[in-house]
């Protein structure tokens, strides 16, 4: 079984934000929720780098560990998903997440955040694959259709890679060896407790 991962090659990212737009459109993500975003470090200075970040689908995910109602689960592909039927909107997953991935429909005074929403690796939720209720709660399920996440699939510079961790690590590794430099596999050490050895 594949172990699905994201890898953002920051030396290729041109901050076009197409991954963000693709994600919002593919899943009809409501206003205010950003399952994926692009952040620029050292903006306008020499050595500036942009990174596209979303849920990294961690190994031993912190969100799942701290959830008071245990609404998270990991699929056979290593994708971390959650049940919006069980989520109580306590906000703890956001406190635990190293990547700021969990999003809530509302600000959250008096604990009224609403059900958490986050990147599903385009893999839907606990409902039946490709069902209407799955689409309404979690967005489309491209994995069930045999497709990879749209953000990475349409990335114009192929900066954002999504797929089997071993394969995308290999692609990244070959690139880095060929061009001779890299700013790192962003988030890998934190999410997967390993990095891509070059």
């Amino acid at each position, binding site marked *: 079984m594949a172990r699905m991962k994201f890898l953002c090659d920051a030396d290729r990212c041109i901050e076009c934000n197409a991954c963000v737009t693709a994600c919002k459109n593919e899943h009809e993500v409501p206003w205010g929720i950003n399952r994926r975003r692009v952040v620029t470090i050292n903006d306008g200075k020499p050595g500036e780098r942009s990174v596209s970040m979303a849920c990294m689908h961690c190994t031993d995910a912190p969100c799942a560990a701290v959830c008071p109602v*245990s609404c998270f689960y990991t699929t056979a592909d290593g994708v971390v998903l959650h049940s919006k039927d069980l989520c109580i909107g306590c*906000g703890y997953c956001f406190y635990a997440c*190293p990547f700021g991935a969990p999003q809530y429909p509302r600000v959250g005074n008096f604990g009224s955040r609403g059900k958490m929403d986050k990147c599903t690796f385009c893999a839907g939720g606990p409902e039946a694959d490709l069902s209407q209720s799955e689409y309404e709660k979690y967005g489309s399920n491209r994995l069930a259709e045999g497709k990879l996440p749209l953000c990475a699939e349409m990335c114009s510079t192929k900066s954002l890679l999504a797929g089997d961790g071993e394969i995308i690590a290999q692609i990244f590794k070959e690139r880095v060896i060929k061009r001779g430099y890299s700013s790192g596999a*962003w988030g890998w050490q934190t999410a997967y407790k390993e990095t891509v050895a070059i």
Partner: protein
Amino acid sequence: MKYLPMRVMLAAWAVCLVAVLCPPGLAQQPSSVNPTAQSVKEQELLKELRKIEGRGSIPDTKSYVIQQPAGRDWRQFHEVTLHWIGGIAILGMLVVLVAFYLVRGMVRLESGRSGRTLVRFNAFERFVHWMTAVCFITLAITGLNITFGKELLLPYIGPQAFTEWSQWAKYAHNYVSFPFTLGVVLIFLTWIAWNFPTPTDVRWMRQGGGIVGHAHPPARRFNAGQKMIYWLVVLIGGTMALSGYILMFPFYETDISQMQTAQMVHAIAGVIFVAIMLAHIYIGTIGMEGAFEAMGSGRVDVNWAREHHSLWLEKQIAKGRIEEPPTPQGKPAPAE
């Protein structure tokens, strides 16, 4: 018009050709280029800053932090440390109380009941106490549910029922906090006059308060133990309210690490508060004969007051606050 020599024209043409064919930058660049010489490196940034932040293009400024592994420390606290602190504080207190009850038993009213009573807590005081108490129990159960519910309750009632209950519990926890906070403020204001430490308290403490031994050290309206409970309720209650409202209004004046800190303070103070209140409930019910009626009916027996609050009783007698028991059916007792 003067004729330019052919050699000069050729030289000028050659210069132009070089200028066109070679872009100006290329001639100035060194032969070996390292585009990452000044670039940020993920692992270096993490090592130096413990979190990586940049500029984003969406309104949510929290999303400009792309990595903050401190969340894992908070996870360690929430899933491991807090379980130990909570378990030791609450179970430890229960063990101590059970052991104490088995060894010492109920603190008896040694001189028996006199039948004459006096008011210990008026209606307003009892209202404040019980409003705060009911809120506290609600907050304690719903709060403990957030930390321990998934281990102690979820396996028995199933995920759907547990979510229903937890959702309800979360809202109860948030809204009941308001009367609770009011209760703590009213407790603070209502009883502060009797809760400043006095030399009597030192003597009371030295004699074990009459709880550990069988002495009956003199005490005013509140003894040193009650004063401690008073100040703990005021201080821990205040801490709970402050940290709780930070959690209830997230990210207004706080960032994520302050939210984590607020949760840690709230959780640690919470389990300690529960442990302390278990002791308070014990001594107010099965721990001491005649204690509960002080907060129940508001009246205590004169002998109870003499044994536990002798200095207070003297003042009450001086003020003429003692009430004789009603004679049955209004008939005078036989004069035999």
